[in-house]
């Protein structure tokens, strides 16, 4: 069974640019989560999508947005990039409608560097 896949694996951007990251969940999973892992800060929750709808978002500005497609894949968009956006962006998926008894399984992330 294929795991969560993310693309691209690495990106280098400059301040003010925009970026789109992509995630394909495990087959059969309907919930997709996005997390940011910045150096020294640990994993921080960004966004949760389930059945095509945004269900919850973390404490991040509106320039972080995304969507979920009918095939449950997801995109994370970041506008007006700032230096502090440099981080590993992780996508996770789980089965069920965000059920609490289902673990989240993670991809290997996209490493975003802002110059």
């Amino acid at each position: 069974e294929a795991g969560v896949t993310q693309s691209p694996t690495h990106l280098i951007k400059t301040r003010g640019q925009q970026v789109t990251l992509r995630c394909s969940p495990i087959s059969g999973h309907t919930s997709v989560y996005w997390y940011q892992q910045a150096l020294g800060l640990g994993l921080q929750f960004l966004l949760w999508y389930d059945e095509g709808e945004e269900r919850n978002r973390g404490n991040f500005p509106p320039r972080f947005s995304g969507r979920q497609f009918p095939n449950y894949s997801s995109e994370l968009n970041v506008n007006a990039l700032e230096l502090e956006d440099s981080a590993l962006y992780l996508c996770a998926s789980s089965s069920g409608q965000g059920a609490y008894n289902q673990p989240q399984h993670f991809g290997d992330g996209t490493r975003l560097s802002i110059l």
Partner: protein
Amino acid sequence: EDQVTQSPEALRLQEGESSSLNCSYTVSGLRGLFWYRQDPGKGPEFLFTLYSAGEEKEKERLKATLTKKESFLHITAPKPEDSATYLCAVHGSAGTALIFGKGTTLSVSS
């Protein structure tokens, strides 16, 4: 405020030297505590889910336990391949998004 604190931040062990990692949590109504392992440059790999105080789960040299305020990850006779960062997480009060601790980086030398 939901919070997860892990200790120690770093732990160095000799091969075969057993030890424990701690995860203390503050959340309104625990709905699941999760342990993950993360290798450098990789995403977190799911290890265990614990739901209620007294519950224990085991996998090879790892054993996770849960009380009402904290969880322990016991590592018995570790090997160098157990070297990784171990992350603890709980469901936040607002939904199923996970609140993570900053992790314990374990180094096992032969």
